[in-house]
């Protein structure tokens, strides 16, 4: 197999990796905010549920979570869901990353001084306005570096879809390397992840810089 064929075979895997990455972010960034807000709910039962969810997600390997989401419906409930492989991957990633993002958001929200809420309240802002106009913009600036970290981790974590034999870059690299007795696929995969993260870092730095106008 020539280098070109290898590359073009792996290109389809890169697309799939990119798809996991994008869908996970689209799902988990907003879901994390909902989880963070529910974590501050005034109902004890809701707070308890959220904290159990977060500790299970953080306390078990993502690889195991992938297997549970994929096989769970059948073994636990006897459901046979057609074409479940890809949805199971996305659900597992979104649910996992939402928990981590929620903790980042929570830290950010808690670091906003009480005086900001009070000033907004005295000025007559509604609770929703206070959150959207006063609190959230400041939270975003504070959490950006931590979010960048998570996003970079996500780029590399997509390789765990390999567990469910999903043909993303890492699975393909391993497969091609075995069949061709070649080290090259691993190098290609390595360069791919590195470049992807280089781009992530570049974009996040730009966003951070755009918020440098205040302290």
């Amino acid at each position, binding site marked *: 197999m020539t280098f070109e064929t290898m590359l073009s075979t792996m290109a389809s895997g890169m697309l799939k990796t990119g798809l996991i990455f994008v869908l996970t972010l689209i799902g988990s960034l907003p879901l994390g905010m909902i989880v963070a807000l529910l974590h501050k709910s005034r109902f004890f039962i809701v707070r308890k549920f959220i904290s159990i969810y977060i500790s299970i997600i953080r306390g078990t390997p993502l690889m195991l979570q992938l297997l549970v989401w994929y096989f769970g419906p059948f073994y636990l409930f006897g459901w046979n869901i057609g074409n479940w492989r890809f949805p199971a991957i996305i659900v597992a990633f979104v649910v996992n990353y939402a928990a981590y993002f929620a903790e980042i958001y929570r830290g950010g929200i808690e670091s906003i001084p009480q005086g*900001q809420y009070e000033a907004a309240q*005295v000025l007559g802002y509604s609770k929703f306005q206070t959150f959207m*106009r006063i609190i959230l*913009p400041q939270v975003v600036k504070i959490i950006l570096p931590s979010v960048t970290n998570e996003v970079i981790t996500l780029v590399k974590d997509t390789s765990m879809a390999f567990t469910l034999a999903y043909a993303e870059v890492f699975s393909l690299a391993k497969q091609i390397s075995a069949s061709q007795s070649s080290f090259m696929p691993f190098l290609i995969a390595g360069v791919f992840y590195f470049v992807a993260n280089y781009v992530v870092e570049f974009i996040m730095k730009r966003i951070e810089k755009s918020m440098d106008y*205040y302290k």
Partner: protein
Amino acid sequence: MILEMNNIQKEFDGLEVLKDISFGVDSGEVVSIIGPSGSGKSTLLRCATFLETIDGGEIIYMGDKAARTGEDGKAVYAGPQEMKKFRSYCGLVFQQFNLFPHYSILKNITDAPIKVQGKSKDEAEANARELLKKMGIEDKADAYPFQLSGGQQQRVAIARALAMKPEILFFDEPTSALDPELTGEVLKVIKQLADEKMTMVVVTHEMPFAKAVSDRVIFMDGGVIVEQGAPKDVLGNPSEERTQQFLRVFER
């Protein structure tokens, strides 16, 4: 009467912070509240501006009851729609300014009038620039809070409160977080507002200032009003022993 507070009671975790406090503020009146820390001055302001809820008593703004004592002896507040109106009557200037750091000075002042009161952008901005001019910082409209000195930030906070056109403006130790050389510029604008007959209640430790601008001084200690009256009486010739004790500290 702009504001009447009757028999206000407030406790935190069993500790009585306000014990049956009653006082009123007339239109155009400037009232200073003095007293040692922990006397309940700030809590009283926070109750008047609805940042804290009272446990018992009445809060009456412009003749309408915002809070009253219910049949079970606990305070009952008006409904959310009415509370909006009551909140719009009062403004508060904080010790720590609490400007919004991500908004420019102009936006700090215009955002609430536009988003809360529904004013047009042009109207709100014109009003904000006028207020900034009055505060002597019209050149700072496009700056951000972190670029301003404490005294300038506090003047922006005053402008922000005034932009909502409150009936009464409360100040919670407005100069306590400032370097001594910056307090003057803030006190000057408060004095100017007093001259314009703005109704104000000022919690302060600046005795000469209290003497110069107030129509009435209230001395609080231990959650009660110990003494109140004209500044020359309360500050110059206090009748209560506790007031004399407190003021002696400032003479030193």
